[in-house]
């Protein structure tokens, strides 16, 4: 048993391992604290390699005494070398794509939800809930269904139709709130006080956030127990971004991998860029914004982990950039055309920033870069509308030949 307690990231006050998420002394976020003093790195590696084909192979580094039962285990998604993308970007860097759309509900949120719901069951909750920009709603509804728990998912009512449909199908209580994500989040913070429910990203947030570390662990394992030189990751609340850093750091500290913390580049949409703005201005807090972007899954105007994301980007010599809606659409197409991976708008943000880094000459020859694709293109189909045209013909050879006369040589 290596899970010790919950600890405040601001003032280090300790708390018991329960459904708590902020420090009663200073309001700082609570984080799971581990005691790995007995851990043998080689033995831990062997346990991982003999483990399940998903995130529970990393149970030693998650907040459980053993491996929880999980009928919908996410993880071990493909890490692909993207040579043609590098070519199109005009760089000699090694570009890798971690395609986390290849999860049970097609986004990285399956990782955090699997951990949160396993903890909810351990703590005896019968109902789970969340405040979501869409992907989390999909994941909570599905994993709750798989676990036989009741669920309530709260989303902005103007969400993409695909994300609403892909949530309601699981038989959850889908609640569309007339407001933006930050309104939904405030409401859920209040509801969490009134109902004995496990809100995965409110009162269970310290556990939930731990799930994102598995993306770092997988990256290291899939690179042959090596670290990338640089990562490019989207930022909404900043939780994924900071937990990737924590995952790499835990394995560095424990000797499972050698080297240095990668350079961290964060990606936001211009229409919702409180963390990129704080980075650019040198602030240590984020000024909240009213989101206006097609990247709805990243549309958090008041990011809980924003300050930590800024700190991590600075500490690793990286940065946080923002891209416009047009750049997002172009980047979705660029990734699809060069890798066969169709990502949602958040992935367009990530690849848009990767392209910016390439254009600025920041990607050195031979540098190993991992870009995190966190969601599936089929969930944000509108973003690709009008980016190409279909050839419409009659069912005849003449009609085909007439349409393609310029292009097809016999």
């Amino acid at each position, binding site marked *: 048993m290596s899970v010790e307690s919950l600890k405040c990231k601001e003032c280090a006050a300790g708390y018991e391992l329960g459904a708590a998420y902020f420090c009663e002394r200073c309001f700082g976020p609570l984080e799971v604290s581990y005691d790995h003093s007995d851990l043998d790195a080689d033995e831990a590696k062997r346990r991982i390699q003999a483990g399940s084909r998903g995130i529970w192979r990393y149970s030693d580094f998650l907040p459980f005494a053993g491996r929880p039962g999980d009928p919908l285990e996410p993880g071990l998604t493909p890490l692909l070398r993207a040579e043609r993308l590098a070519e199109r970007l005009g760089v000699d860097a090694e570009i890798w794509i971690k395609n986390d759309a290849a999860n049970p509900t097609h986004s990285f949120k399956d990782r955090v939800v699997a951990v949160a719901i396993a903890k909810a069951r351990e703590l005896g909750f019968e109902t789970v809930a969340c405040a979501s920009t869409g992907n989390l709603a999909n994941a909570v509804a599905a994993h709750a269904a798989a676990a036989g728990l009741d669920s309530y998912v709260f989303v902005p009512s103007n969400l993409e139709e695909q994300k609403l449909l892909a949530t309601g199908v699981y038989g959850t209580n889908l609640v569309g709130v007339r407001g933006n994500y930050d309104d939904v989040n405030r409401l859920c913070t209040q509801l969490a006080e009134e109902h004995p429910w496990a809100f995965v990203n409110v009162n269970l947030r310290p556990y939930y956030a731990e799930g994102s570390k598995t993306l770092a662990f997988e990256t290291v394992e899939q690179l042959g127990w090596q670290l990338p030189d640089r990562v490019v990751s989207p930022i909404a609340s900043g939780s994924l971004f900071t937990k990737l850093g924590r995952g790499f750091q835990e394995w560095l500290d424990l000797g499972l991998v050698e080297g240095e913390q990668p350079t961290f580049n964060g990606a936001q949409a211009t229409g919702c860029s409180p963390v990129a703005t704080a980075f650019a201005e040198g602030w240590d807090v984020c000024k909240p914004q009213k989101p206006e972007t097609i990247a709805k899954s990243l549309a958090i105007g008041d990011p*809980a982990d924003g300050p930590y994301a800024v700190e991590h980007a600075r500490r690793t010599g990286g940065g946080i950039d923002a891209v416009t809606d047009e750049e997002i659409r172009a980047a979705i197409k660029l990734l699809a055309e060069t890798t066969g991976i169709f990502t949602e708008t958040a992935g367009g943000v990530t690849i848009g920033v990767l392209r910016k880094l390439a254009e600025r000459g920041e990607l050195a020859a031979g540098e190993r870069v991992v870009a995190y694709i966190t969601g599936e293109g089929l969930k944000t189909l509108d973003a690709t509308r009008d980016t190409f045209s279909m050839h419409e013909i009659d069912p005849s050879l003449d009609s085909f030949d007439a349409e393609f006369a310029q292009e097809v040589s016999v």
Partner: protein
Amino acid sequence: MSVTVKIPTQLRAATGGESEVQVEGSNVGEALDAVFAAYGDLRERITQDGTLRRFVNVYVSGEDIRFQQGLETAINPGDEVTILPAVAGG
């Protein structure tokens, strides 16, 4: 002007279990000062060097005061001031 300030569950030990406190004040800063005058333990938890701690959010009738005039945000009759942790979501 009398205003209702809602206290998060985790801080109610400092208010003798009260979930809301009635105080006088024309803006958010005055209302919070009045709360701190009644329940001294809350000041240090919610503020640091005279400003709100960075993980504390305050809303006037549902609207984040950072979109308004911060602690100077005026309070109108019927408004409710809500204090909430900022570390949820995402």
